C-alpha cells in the first residue's frame, strides 16, 4: 500500500511539461465584452460588413442566454467581462512564408516540438498554427493549392473565399446553438478553414495547433472543414497552454460538412494545462464540435484523446442526414488530480440505413471526475439505423468518479441500437499475472491501460498515436489505485 501511495504521489506531483510561457509583444483588445469589442475585433481583422452583422446578431442571442448548468462538472463561473477577447502576437503583416514569421514565434513552436520548417519536415503534415487568437502560419500551402485544396487561416478565408465562408459558416452549428457556441460566434478571432474539392483525396494530414500564451485571454477559434463530394481528408488538432494560476477559457467551434461519398476524419489530442495538483488554474475547455453527413454515403469520424484541461465539456457530434452515412466517435478521456471531464457524443440518425459507432474509454485517477454523456437519436424516418455504443470506465484511486449518462431515443422500429458500459478498476489478478512474469507494477499498469485504450488509439494517424501513447503513459504513470 505504501508503495502505491508513493507511486500515486509521484504521479500527482508530475508537472505539466508545456507550462512555460513566452513574452512577446502582443496586440490586445481591452478587457471586457460588449458590442464595441466585437466591432473592434471585426475592424482589426478587416472583415466585411456581413460578418460583423453576423457577429452582432450572435452577440444579441448570447446576451439572452443563460450559462448552462446541467453538466456533471463543478466550477467557479468565469467572469466573462474580465477576459480579453483578442490577443495577437505583433508581427509584420501577413507573412508570405516562414522567413517572415517572427523567429520568437517559431521558437515557441519548436519548443513544443512542432516544427514549422517545411524542409526539415519528414512527415507530410500541413499545419495551421494558432497562437492565442490568430493564425500564425500555415505550411504546405502551395502543395495543397495545386490540388485545389484550400487550407488557410479563417481570416484569410474570409477575405479570399467569402462565398464558401458565407455558405458554410454556421450551417452545422448555428450561432444560436448554445451559450458557448454563440459566444464564439460573436467574438471568434481566428481558426482554420479547409476545403477539399470534389473527388480530391487530400494527400497529407492537415493539422491545426492551438496554443494560449497570453494571460487572461479567452481563446475562441473556429474551424470549418468542408469536404465536397467524393473527397477525403484527415484533420488533426493539438493544443497546449502555459501554466497559470487563473483559469482560462477556451470556447472553440468546429464545424464539418461532408458531401456525398466523402470522408472526414477529425483527430484531437487535447493537452491543455489541466491545473496544478491542487486543482488551481487550468483551462476551461468548452467546445462545440459537430459534423453533418449531408450527402449519401458520407462518413465523419471523430477521434479524441483528452488528457488536459481543468474542465472539459465537449460532445463532438454527427448529424447523419444522408442515406447510408456513417458517424464514428472514438474517445479516450483521462482525468487526474482535480480535473473534470463531461464528454461524449451525439449521433442523430436522420437518413436511411445510417450507421454509427461510439467507443468511449474513460480513465479517472486522483480526485478527478470523468463523465460520458451521449445521445443516440433515431428519427422517425431513419429506417434501418444501426448504432453500437460502448463506454468503459477505468478507475484508479478511491477518490475519483466515473459516470455514464447515455440517452437513447428511438422513434423507428427498424433501428438496432446497442449500448454497453462497464466500470471497474484494474484487476488485481491482471497486475499479479504481469508481476509473475517479471513486469513491474508500474509497467503492468501502462500495459493494461494501453491495451484498454488501444481500440481508440488505433484510430489515430500514426504520428499522433505515438504522441497520444506517450501522453497517456505520462498522465497515468504509476497510478495504481
Amino acid at each position, binding site marked *: 500500500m505504501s508503495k502505491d501511495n508513493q507511486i500515486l504521489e509521484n504521479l500527482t506531483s508530475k508537472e505539466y511539461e508545456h507550462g512555460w510561457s513566452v513574452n512577446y509583444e502582443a496586440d490586445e483588445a481591452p478587457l471586457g465584452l460588449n458590442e464595441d469589442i466585437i466591432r473592434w475585433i471585426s475592424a482589426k481583422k478587416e472583415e466585411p460588413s456581413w460578418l460583423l452583422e453576423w457577429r452582432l446578431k450572435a452577440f444579441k442571442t448570447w446576451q439572452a442566454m443563460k450559462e448552462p448548468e446541467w453538466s456533471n462538472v463543478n466550477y467557479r463561473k468565469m467572469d466573462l467581462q474580465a477576459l480579453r477577447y483578442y490577443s495577437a502576437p505583433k508581427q509584420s503583416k501577413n507573412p508570405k512564408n516562414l522567413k517572415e514569421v517572427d523567429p520568437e514565434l517559431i521558437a515557441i513552436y519548436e519548443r513544443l516540438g512542432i516544427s514549422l520548417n517545411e524542409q526539415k519536415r519528414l512527415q507530410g503534415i500541413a499545419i495551421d498554427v494558432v497562437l492565442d487568437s490568430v493564425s500564425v502560419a500555415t505550411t504546405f500551402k502551395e502543395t495543397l493549392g495545386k490540388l485545389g485544396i484550400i487550407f488557410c487561416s479563417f481570416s484569410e478565408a474570409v477575405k479570399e473565399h467569402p462565398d464558401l465562408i458565407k455558405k458554410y459558416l454556421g450551417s452545422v452549428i448555428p450561432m444560436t446553438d448554445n451559450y458557448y457556441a454563440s459566444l464564439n460566434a460573436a467574438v471568434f478571432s481566428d481558426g482554420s478553414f479547409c476545403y477539399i474539392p470534389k473527388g480530391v483525396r487530400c494527400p497529407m494530414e492537415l493539422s491545426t495547433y492551438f496554443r494560449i500564451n497570453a494571460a487572461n485571454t479567452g481563446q475562441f477559434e473556429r474551424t470549418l472543414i468542408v469536404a465536397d463530394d467524393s473527397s477525403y481528408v484527415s484533420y488533426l488538432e493539438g493544443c497546449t497552454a502555459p501554466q497559470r494560476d487563473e483559469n482560462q477559457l477556451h470556447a472553440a467551434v468546429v464545424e464539418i460538412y461532408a458531401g456525398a461519398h466523402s470522408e472526414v476524419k477529425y483527430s484531437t489530442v487535447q493537452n491543455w494545462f489541466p491545473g496544478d495538483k491542487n486543482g488551481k488554474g487550468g483551462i476551461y475547455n468548452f467546445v462545440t464540435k459537430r459534423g453533418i453527413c449531408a450527402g449519401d454515403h458520407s462518413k465523419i469520424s471523430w477521434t479524441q484523446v483528452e488528457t488536459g484541461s481543468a474542465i472539459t465539456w465537449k460532445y463532438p457530434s454527427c448529424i447523419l442526414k444522408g442515406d447510408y452515412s456513417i458517424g464514428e466517435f472514438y474517445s479516450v478521456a483521462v482525468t487526474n488530480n482535480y480535473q473534470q471531464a463531461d464528454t461524449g457524443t451525439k449521433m442523430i440518425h436522420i437518413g436511411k440505413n445510417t450507421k454509427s459507432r461510439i467507443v468511449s474509454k474513460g480513465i479517472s485517477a486522483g480526485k478527478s471526475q470523468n463523465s460520458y454523456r451521449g445521445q443516440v437519436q433515431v428519427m422517425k424516418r431513419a429506417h434501418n439505423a444501426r448504432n453500437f455504443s460502448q463506454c468503459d470506465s477505468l478507475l484508479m484511486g478511491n477518490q475519483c468518479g466515473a459516470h455514464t449518462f447515455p440517452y437513447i431515443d428511438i422513434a423507428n422500429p427498424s*433501428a438496432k441500437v446497442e449500448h454497453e458500459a462497464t466500470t471497474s478498476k484494474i484487476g488485481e489478478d491482471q497486475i499479479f499475472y504481469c508481476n509473475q512474469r517479471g513486469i513491474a507494477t508500474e509497467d503492468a499498469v501502462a500495459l493494461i491501460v494501453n491495451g484498454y485504450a488501444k481500440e481508440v488509439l488505433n484510430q489515430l494517424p500514426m504520428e499522433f498515436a505515438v504522441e497520444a501513447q506517450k501522453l497517456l503513459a505520462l498522465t497515468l504513470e504509476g497510478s495504481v489505485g
Partner: protein
Amino acid sequence: MIGSKRKLILQPQSDPTAIRMSTLTQHELILGLFEAAPTTFLSLRQLGKESFYAQGLPTLKSEEYKFTPLAKKLESNLTEFYPAEQVEISHKQVKSALFPNFKGVVLVFSNGHYLPQLSSTSEGLAVNLLSERENTPLGSIAKIDKDPFVALNQATFTDGLHLSLDKKKALESPILLLQFHQTQGGQVISPRIWIEAGDFSKATIIDYHISLDEAPYFVNKVVEIRGGVHADITYHSIQQENNQVIEVSNLVTDIHPDAQFTSTQITLSGDMIRNNLTLNLLGSNSVGEMFGLYLLHGKTHVDNHTNVDHMVSHAESNELYKGILADQSRGVFNGKIFVRQIAQKTNAFQQNNNILLSDDVIINTKPQLEIWADDVKCSHGCTVGQLDEEALFYLQTRGIDKITAKGLLLYAFAGEVLDKIEEDSLRNYIVNQIQKRLESNF
C-alpha cells in the same frame, strides 16, 4: 456536488405564486385537492404542501420528467381534482379478482381506502390504518424533496395502510394488496402504504390495481418499506388498469445489512404511467433486485425510473427491465446506479432490452451510472431492436405460422423477467394475460 445537481432538477422556488404550473387551471385544480385533504397528520401535510409548491408540477424541462408530460396529461384527462371517495366493493368482486389458485392474505382497498371487513390477516402480521399508528415516521424513507409527487401525496393522502411483520416471521403465502379503483371520472386516488419488516422476516407482497370502469382517474401512490436486518422482502406490482388512467407510483425502500429486496414491476395497460423505484442500500451484504416488464399497446406511455443508491460497501444490485412496444405506445426507461465513495466492493448490474413492433412507437432509454468509488464492478447494457428475422424464418420453416412464431419469440423474450416471479398463481396469471395478448397479435 450531489446537492448542486439536485438543485438543477428541482429548482426550488419559495414564492408560491411563481410555481411552474403549465396553466392556471391546473393550479386551481390542485388547490381544490389541498382544500379537500383530511385534517389528520397536519404538520406532515403542511410540509408536503410547502415542498410541492416549491417544486411545482414537473414540466418537460425538468430532466427527470423530460419525456413524460404529466402536467399536460392531468389537465387533459381530469375534469375534477378531488380525492376519490370510497365505493362499495362486494365479496363477489374480491373473489373474482383473485388470481386462480391464489392462497394468502388479501387486503382490499377501494380508491386507496382500506376495507378491513373484506380483508384477512395472518399470524405475525399486524395490519393497521396509518391513523391508528400515529408514530409512524412517514416521509422518512420517501422524502418529499426528492419528487414533487411524493410531496403531493404527503399533502393530500386520506389515510393509508400500515403493515408490520414480526421479527423472524417468514410468511409462507403472499400478501395481496387488491386495489379497486372506480371514480366518477377525474378524481385523485392517493394511496399511502408503510411496510415494516422485522429482522430475519420474509414476505412477498403483491400490489395489484384494478379499474372497475373506464373512467379516467389519477393514482398518486407512495409506498415506503423498511426491511430489518436479514429481512427478505419481495414486492410485485401489477398495473393493468383502464386506458385512461394516469398513475405515478413512488416506491422507496431502505435495505439494511444482509437484507434482500426484490421488486417486479409489470405494466400491461394505462394511459400514462410513471414508476419511481428507489432502493437505498444501507447495509453491507444487502442485495437489491429490480425486474420489470412492460408490454405496451394503444397509446400507453410508461416511464420507469429506477434509482439504486449504494451507500455502503459490499452491497449488490441487479436490474433487468424488458419492454415490448406496439401501436403508438411509448416507453421511457431511466436506470440510475449511484455508488458512493465509501461503497467499495460494489457489484451493480443493469440491463434494459426493448423490442419495437410498430412504426409509431418511441423509446427513450437512459441507463445511467454515477460511480464515486473505485473498487467496483458495474455494468449496464441496453438494446433496442426487433425480433430476429432468422429465428422467425426458422420457426416458419418448421410449419409454425408467422403470428404464432412471433408470439413464441416474444414470449421467450418476456420469459426472462416472468421467471423471476416465484409466486406460482401470480406468474401463471400474468403468463396467461400475456399469451392472450400475443395470440391476438398484441
